[in-house]
């Protein structure tokens, strides 16, 4: 069930809320949480009920391991944790990476391989990391002693089950134990609905609109045929599609959780405003970055074992982070690309020219370079294969010549001297209207505040201290008529797009 589907908006969500309210009235908060956990499992099963037993078995095993790890004086914690890590990563690996690894081994030894990948259980990457976080916390002595219903809800809570954020136990479990007088607060519902409206608008109006310019180029039969402007339009479109898609999902997750009185961690903070690649990773998929830092980079030694080891650790972490998104070399290379860029960024900022540069008013140049690096990364990320990725990058940088509409040559004949050719048939490039659309999107991502900034007076994510400072923002949400009308309008415009259902990109990871 997608958040942007009619069945979710008009059936599941109202029923989940009514049930939550009735359960609260009949049996108090604990019964209401139990109902919500049940509703979340139904939400998960809607896709493919075959994978529900796997989810429930995984939850049960991890809950049992977590309880054992939470008993302070009991020995064997190391083995229990190792078992937990092996079981969770084994499950993830078996479903997601087995076929990829086997196919690559077979290719390495020049052997045929025709094994098929098992169907990937939805959200397995997220709920695996979720539960690993829980085990690490239990092992570290931050004993949560959650009840099974709390733990089940912590893992399966439908706003975050499929595509994150990756929630740490202390970010959610204490909220489940907080007493309340009523099932819902009208203020929470207002805030939640507003965030849901913003998210639906971003996804259904913006992300799905630019998506039309992505597939025809990335999936084009003849990669070498992709013209210069087509390649740029597709690369920029995917850059914006991913931004608005992920941003939309993050807003909706926050909003839906808020409607039930739960604050989820922020996961997205205007990443394209970043002026360095280090800054980008503080803003993009924040909970994954923190997970990789705390449970992979730091345990590997982080920056405590010398410069060379730090570089190695960073590259390994980013490589693994890339592969977490999918079993394909393009994802690994995307991760490595970002790893290399992070190393360059660190080296530059510590160098003398870098320090001088930081004092100069050249943030526009830094931003442009960062955006370019990120866009190149998304081409690697989206391309169906390595060859296609490099072919598209080559087209973007003139490797296949520079082509412009034939009428541009008539208006500016001098550009022909530069080797620029005229072309009349384009895959996706469509001229001035499209350029205007991109300009508008740049304005939105660069100049407008993000949802967390707009909502900062009423939404405080539990990981607020790990996020960039909000800065001074004039556009702040208040429960006024104006905001209500605007929210109603954008919600309805988004709902008018319900006829075209498209999946969130992060669901596939």
């Amino acid at each position, binding site marked *: 069930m997608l958040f942007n589907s009619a069945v979710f908006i008009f059936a599941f969500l109202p029923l989940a809320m009514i049930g939550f309210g009735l359960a609260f009235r009949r049996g108090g908060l604990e019964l209401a949480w139990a109902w919500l956990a049940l509703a979340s499992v139904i939400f998960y099963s809607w896709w493919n009920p075959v994978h529900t037993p796997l989810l429930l078995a995984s939850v049960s095993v991890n809950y049992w391991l977590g309880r054992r790890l939470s008993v302070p004086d009991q020995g064997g914690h190391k083995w229990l944790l190792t078992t937990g890590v092996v079981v969770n990563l084994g499950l993830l690996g078996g479903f997601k990476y087995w076929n990829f690894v086997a196919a690559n081994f077979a290719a390495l030894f020049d052997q045929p391989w025709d094994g098929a990948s098992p169907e990937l259980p939805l959200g397995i990457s997220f709920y695996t990391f979720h539960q690993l976080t829980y085990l690490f916390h239990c092992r570290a002595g931050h004993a949560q002693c959650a009840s099974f219903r709390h733990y089940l809800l912590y893992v399966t809570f439908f706003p975050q089950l499929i595509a994150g954020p990756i929630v740490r136990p202390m970010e959610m479990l204490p909220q489940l134990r907080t007493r309340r007088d009523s099932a819902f607060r009208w203020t929470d519902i207002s805030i939640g609905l507003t965030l849901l409206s913003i998210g639906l608008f971003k996804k259904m109006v913006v992300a799905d609109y630019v998506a039309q310019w992505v597939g025809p180029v990335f999936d084009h039969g003849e990669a070498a045929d992709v013209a210069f402007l087509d390649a740029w339009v597709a690369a920029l479109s995917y850059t914006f599609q991913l931004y608005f898609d992920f941003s939309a999902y993050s807003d909706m997750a926050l909003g839906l959780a808020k409607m039930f009185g739960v604050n989820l961690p922020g996961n997205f903070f205007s990443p394209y405003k970043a002026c360095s690649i280090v800054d980008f990773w503080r803003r993009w998929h924040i909970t994954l970055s923190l997970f990789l830092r705390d449970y992979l980079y730091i345990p590997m030694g982080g920056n405590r074992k010398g410069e060379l080891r730090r570089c190695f650790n960073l590259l390994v972490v980013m490589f693994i982070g890339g592969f977490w998104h999918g079993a394909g070399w393009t994802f690994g290379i995307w991760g490595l690309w970002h790893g290399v860029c992070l190393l360059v960024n660190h080296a530059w900022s510590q160098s003398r020219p870098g320090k001088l540069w930081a004092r100069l008013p050249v943030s526009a140049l830094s931003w442009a370079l960062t955006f370019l690096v990120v866009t190149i990364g998304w081409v690697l990320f989206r391309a169906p294969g390595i060859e296609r990725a490099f072919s598209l990058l080559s087209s973007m940088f003139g490797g296949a010549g520079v082509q412009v509409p034939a009428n541009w040559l008539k208006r500016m004949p001098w550009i022909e001297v530069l080797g620029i050719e005229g072309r009349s048939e384009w895959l996706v490039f469509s001229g001035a209207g499209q350029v205007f659309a991109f300009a508008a999107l740049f304005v939105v991502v660069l100049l407008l505040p993000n949802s967390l900034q707009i909502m900062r007076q009423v939404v405080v994510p539990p990981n607020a201290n790990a996020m960039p400072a909000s800065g001074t923002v004039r556009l702040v949400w208040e*429960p006024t008529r104006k905001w209500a009308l605007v929210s109603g309008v954008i919600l309805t415009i988004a709902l008018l797009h319900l*006829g075209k259902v498209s999946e969130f990109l992060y669901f596939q990871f």
Partner: protein
Amino acid sequence: MRSQPATQYLVFMLLGSAVVLVLVLSLNRLANPYCLFANDWVPHENKPETFSHSRLVKANQVRHLRPAAVVLGSSRAESGIDPRHPAWRHHPVYNLGLAGARIYEVMRYFQHASAAGEVKEAVLVLDFFAFLEDSGVAKDFREDRLLTDRDGALQTGVSWADRISGMLSWDACIASINTLLAGEAGFRHLANGSRNTAFDIDRILARGGAAKAFEALRRGGGSLMPGTTSRLGEREKSCFRTILDLARKEHIDLRIALGPTHVEYLEGVAAADQWELFLDWMRAMVEIVEEEATRSGVAPFRLVDFNGYHEFNQERMPEKGMAQYYFDPFHFTPRLGSQMMDLLMGSPEPLKTAPPGSFGVLLNSNTLDLQIQAYREHRVRFSKQRSRKE
């Protein structure tokens, strides 16, 4: 603005939603882009959405117009057979040709038209590709928008999905704006359901003319080119039987044409190793038509073959500009369609005396073998001529 309690916030949010909904409903009713309503508030002959939503619009237009005569088939019938041809005896005439339609969809729209009014006359242009096994239906085909179910039993034909997408969707808003802004340019469909061939001609000319269109289809294939399917579908044959039964039951004067295709297409069929299958298809059509006549105890419906290696189908494409009889290897022009109509609707004598292999041969079990023999001979002659030229 002063802060309001949360409940008031939700009320105003609902109000914002309601305002948008009212505006959207009004716009879509005003423009009526998919012909959901019989009357336009702002009359617009040009409904540009007919092209992209032909199955929806045509189902609605048939319901409103209640035609007395219909053209059935794929886009070939849609662009080639003119409802204004003088041979039609009953009016209004509506062209129910649907792009890419296989015989199942043709049958369902015939049932729909018959249930909508009193159809007395029909011309069915048959396509080889429409009878291939597992041919399926188009993505935008919906059973619930038609006035009968597949067994012919009446149903409401009210599709809530159509109503919602036609009145309360963003696409409908864009379609409404397109409809309101549409002038004569981009006029793709006429009110009688036919393609506006003037638009198609402009488009083909803009792309370099008919020769380029032939070349593009030769290279690109497309859904109408012969594929790899090696059998005629039993379900598809059964749909054809249903069409004949319905016509007989409702006393509809049905004329059936094996629609003409350019020899380039026939050579494509042969190259795809489907030549014998194509001939089997002809045999099957004759067999089904005669079988129905035997069952009914009356004369068979008129079945006329316009295929073959005759002069019309061997028309040479000019280097620039348009050909007379073909837009591309599948789509014949209304000029050729008009000649088909003369033979289909006129006296049967010219058909009976036409030599095998010529344009417009009456097909039955007596003429079939001669016709196939003529095909084979003409094809050999054509191949020799072509290889000599090359």
